[in-house]
């Protein structure tokens, strides 16, 4: 069984640049774990350290029961799918699939059977005798997937595998990969997945759990739902969700949040939890959780984006940008109004400490419920 544990994992490059700052993470057997973050957040580096393609300069990687720090990639019971497929250009698809098994010294009939199985699952049977350059992007990525699958590894590593595909293909490959994962799991095969992406849609739709990273540190590890509903800090709040969560700066006054001349009653006093003095805070509310209501906060409408069934209203609230998603009918009802009143849903408010970015409404639980 292939549980993956990262213990205080560090990466320091030759010039003393620290890319990964002591990561601790426990990935359960059979779990689909997604690493997500902006480019340069060291998610790929972390993955490559698990794969053995990047030297580990501190901490441990444990796959199953084995500490793999000093094992070559081929001995770690992993398979990897690369962003640009990395198919061997001079070998036919069949040869690409067979390579790992040949190196492992498997017999010819064994390899043939394995190729047939994988080709059937991924529907690449007609492509077996083609060269990689004769494949389209989607086909090449399927072959790359097959090359990983055929090894029956303990852990699958995906390094932005869908980034080079067009949007439509990406959506279908997303489904294919999650299906495959479910199928492997149902068959009782080891199917732990670590999937690196910068695309939050992929992260949210595919992951059992998501590990949000920034600048070599883990920001939050949680299920997609938890991440969306209870972001642990400002970074996660701003990174997950589309359009982005509105983050309004202001300060706390008892159980009121004060933005410029306007006040919002939070219904709970979290002032004591703030590290910032005076009680500077950031109020987080998703555009979907704002409704037009007479008792809302006043904002000046700047422009509206018509998306079909809904409209994104861009407005300025005390000089700060705010976006609200409203239904098309509600937008019509506004007429030519220049100011709108937006009421945040009290159930979905987040208060963040301005200094360290923590979500202070989370602790104690009730505020963010």
């Amino acid at each position, binding site marked *: 069984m292939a549980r993956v544990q990262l213990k205080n994992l560090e990466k320091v490059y030759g010039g003393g640049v620290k890319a990964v700052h002591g990561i601790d993470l426990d990935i359960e057997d059979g779990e689909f774990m997604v690493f997500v973050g902006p480019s340069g957040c060291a998610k790929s580096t972390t993955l490559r350290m698990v*794969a*053995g*393609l990047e030297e580990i300069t501190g901490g441990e990687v444990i796959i199953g029961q084995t500490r793999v720090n000093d094992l*070559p*990639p*081929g*001995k770690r019971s*992993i*398979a*990897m799918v*690369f962003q*640009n497929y*990395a*198919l*061997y*250009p*001079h070998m036919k698809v069949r040869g690409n699939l067979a*390579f*790992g098994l040949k*190196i*492992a010294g498997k017999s010819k009939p064994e390899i043939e059977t394995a190729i047939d199985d994988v080709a059937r699952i991924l529907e690449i049977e007609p492509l077996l005798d083609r060269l990689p350059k004769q494949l389209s992007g989607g086909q090449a990525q399927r072959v790359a997937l097959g*090359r990983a699958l055929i*090894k029956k590894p303990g852990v699958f590593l995906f390094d932005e595998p869908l980034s080079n595909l067009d949007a439509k293909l990406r959506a279908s490959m997303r489904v294919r990969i999650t299906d495959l994962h479910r199928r492997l799991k149902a068959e009782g095969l080891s199917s732990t997945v670590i999937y690196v992406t910068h695309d939050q849609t992929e992260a949210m739709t595919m992951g059992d759990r998501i590990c949000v990273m920034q600048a070599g540190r883990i920001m939050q590890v949680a299920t997609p739902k938890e991440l969306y509903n209870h972001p642990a800090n400002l970074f996660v709040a701003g990174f997950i969700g589309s359009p982005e969560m509105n983050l309004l700066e202001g300060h706390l006054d008892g159980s009121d949040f004060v933005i410029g001349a306007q006040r919002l009653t939070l219904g709970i006093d979290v002032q004591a939890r703030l590290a910032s003095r005076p009680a500077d805070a950031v109020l987080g509310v998703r555009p979907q959780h704002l409704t037009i209501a007479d008792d809302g906060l006043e904002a000046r409408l700047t422009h509206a984006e018509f998306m079909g069934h809904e409209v994104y209203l861009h407005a300025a609230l005390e000089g700060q940008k705010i976006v609200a998603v409203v239904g098309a009918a509600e937008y019509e009802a506004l007429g030519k109004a220049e100011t709108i009143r937006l009421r945040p849903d009290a159930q979905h408010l987040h208060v963040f400490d301005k200094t360290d970015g923590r979500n202070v409404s989370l602790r104690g639980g009730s505020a963010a419920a």
Partner: protein
Amino acid sequence: MDMQAFNDAQAARRARLMMLQQSIRYVLLFAVGLVMLYPLIWLVGASFKTNSEIFAGAGFLPRNPTLDGYIHGWQTSTPYTFGRFFWNSFLIILPKVIGTAISCTLAAYAFARFDFPLKKVFFVSVIAILLLPNVVTRIPQYILFRDFGWLDTFLPLWVPSALAGDAFFVFMLVQFLRSLPSDMEEAARVDGANSLQTLLYIVVPMLAPALISVCLFQFMWTMNDFLGPLIYLSSVDKYPVSLALKLSIDTTEAFEWNRILAMSVLTIAPALIIFFAAQRYFIEGISAGGVKG
């Protein structure tokens, strides 16, 4: 004049102009090409002439074509036929080319893909050797090989090259390797291949165009090398063709130019044949290093 007729006239004029341009271009190219190739054509023609006819005119068509030059040239003035000298050349070229391909690939792979202590120092010394004039090393090399007892053997002619002694080839392959993405090699390592297997099964096939150029260069340069054999070989039975050609000038009092020319034609033939057969890869190999990056 109506518009249609006018347009037709214009089109016809353009076509005539185009035709004229093309003709001028081709005539010019043909003329320059001929000037460059004429010595070679003359060489082939003259090899079928009699000795006296060679200096009679600059034309290349022999009046009384004769194979005399080839027949007598092949016999040579030594106890050996020219075939013996070809065989000697072959005995030098074969281990040299194979050795160069293998050793330079290994060295280039190490420089391009691995980190090891003093790598920079080593690489700088490769470049330094590249810039060093050959002449400078002749004497120390000679003394070294004399002490090895390698004089008058083929060893000094191919062993240094077979041990990646040709910095130019190492450098060329390093540059080519650097332009190749390392993803495939990483994929191979994940697939369980060790460094040598990765090199053999993944890198070498991708390196093929560059390797073919290396082999071709080495072949041609060795075939044409005169100074090396001249310094290290003293027995006539070990001479390669480059020395053998000179031999036919030295040993006869009146030069039999038609024999020399005939043997010259035979001497350049293998290089020409191989070059034309492999020219596609050759050009691909030279240009790929620069373009692909």
